[in-house]
């Protein structure tokens, strides 16, 4: 993957720095959320697959880590303010699993899965696949950072869940590979990060939240709360994605991806909420608030993406930067 196109003065300075230009010594004020989240995404990506045009040693460059920390503080502060409404859904619940369930069933104004189920065109469905490609081509990777930070039953349960995500011993069943086949079948580019230039900050923020939680040990509770909410909201949404794909005849690989996730995530949601988060809260009760914050961040950011997508689609526009998918197919 090559570095993306900058979206403001910060991402421009970061790209320059990463390619051997002038050193960036602090983040300053980004030019809005696209500039901030693209910069943060680039800095996180150094820890995943890196960039062809960046020296791998920059991953642990203390100067870049300091810039990343500035952006993370700003992102975390904003998230903590924004998750209030979703978090309040857990107020009446008595135990952790019920709190997670209440957060996961919080309903925003817009639902991408309902739109794709009944209303979307094939072009809009492909835009959805493009937006999702940023995460699904590294599916479950951000949560894997938590493994060495957990112990006992929570660690065993996370490993059990991820064994399934990572193909259950069969490379052809790696979930990211299933998604790559779905993209190819829809006529899209399945290479890692291919569409980062087309994806707005809303989706970048979803990805950045997972990396923020995954890469910081202090957020291990939030990483697992995020995973629980992600899995708990998945089976019913995947059923609608599947029905939408069938209605639009998106092809067998697209259907298979979502079909697989209905059953898989019905298992994963129980493992994530009860065994992973439940065990973690038993052994480290001080993490309960972090677990709930992670879950609420997942649901809140999902709603941010949904609102953006539904607004664009119902206005007859594209959710992608630079217009519709006809040119990318």
């Amino acid at each position: 993957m090559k570095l993306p196109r900058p979206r403001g003065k910060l991402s421009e300075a970061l790209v320059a720095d990463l390619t051997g230009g002038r050193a960036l010594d602090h983040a300053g004020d980004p030019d809005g959320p696209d500039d901030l989240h693209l910069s943060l995404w680039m800095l996180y990506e150094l820890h995943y697959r890196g960039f062809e045009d960046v020296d791998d040693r920059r991953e642990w460059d203390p100067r870049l880590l300091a810039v990343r920390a500035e952006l993370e503080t700003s992102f975390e502060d904003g998230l903590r303010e924004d998750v209030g409404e979703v978090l309040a859904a857990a107020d009446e619940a008595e135990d952790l699993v019920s709190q997670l369930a209440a957060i996961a069933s919080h309903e925003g104004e817009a639902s991408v899965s309902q739109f794709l189920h009944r209303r979307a065109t094939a072009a809009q469905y492909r835009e959805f696949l493009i937006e999702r490609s940023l995460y699904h081509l590294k599916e479950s990777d951000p949560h894997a950072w938590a493994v060495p930070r957990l112990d006992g039953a929570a660690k065993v349960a996370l490993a059990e869940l991820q064994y399934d995500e990572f193909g259950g011993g069969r490379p052809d069943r790696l979930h990211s590979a299933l998604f790559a086949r779905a993209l190819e079948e829809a006529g899209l580019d399945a290479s890692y990060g291919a569409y980062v230039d087309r994806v707005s900050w809303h989706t970048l923020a979803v990805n950045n939240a997972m990396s923020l939680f995954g890469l910081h040990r202090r957020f291990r509770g939030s990483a697992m709360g995020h995973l629980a909410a992600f899995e708990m909201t998945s089976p019913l949404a995947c059923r609608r994605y599947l029905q939408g794909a069938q209605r639009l005849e998106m092809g067998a690989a697209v259907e298979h991806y979502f079909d697989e996730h209905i059953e898989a995530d019905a298992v994963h949601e129980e493992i994530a909420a009860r065994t992973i988060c439940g065990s973690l809260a038993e052994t480290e009760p001080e993490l309960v608030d972090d677990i709930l914050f992670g879950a609420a961040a997942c649901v809140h950011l999902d709603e941010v993406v949904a609102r953006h997508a539904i607004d664009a689609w119902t206005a007859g526009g594209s959710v992608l930067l630079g217009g519709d998918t006809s040119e990318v197919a």
Partner: protein
Amino acid sequence: MSAPASGSRTGCQITVVPDGPALVRGADVVYDDQGVAHEAERPVVAVCLCGLSQRLPWCDATHKVAGGRPSKT
């Protein structure tokens, strides 16, 4: 939820989730109420206990929209 006791034997293990499915670990085949064999294709499968799933014998989370499994009492 408590973890199984350490040193427990490997083999098939069934965990009934309150108001949810049964999580079955280590099964090769699940027979439905018609006696039809369904191969368990993942290390842990969720078997529907509410009967409302659209892909029996597997759970598809329909119990959540249906308000949980019918009470035993």
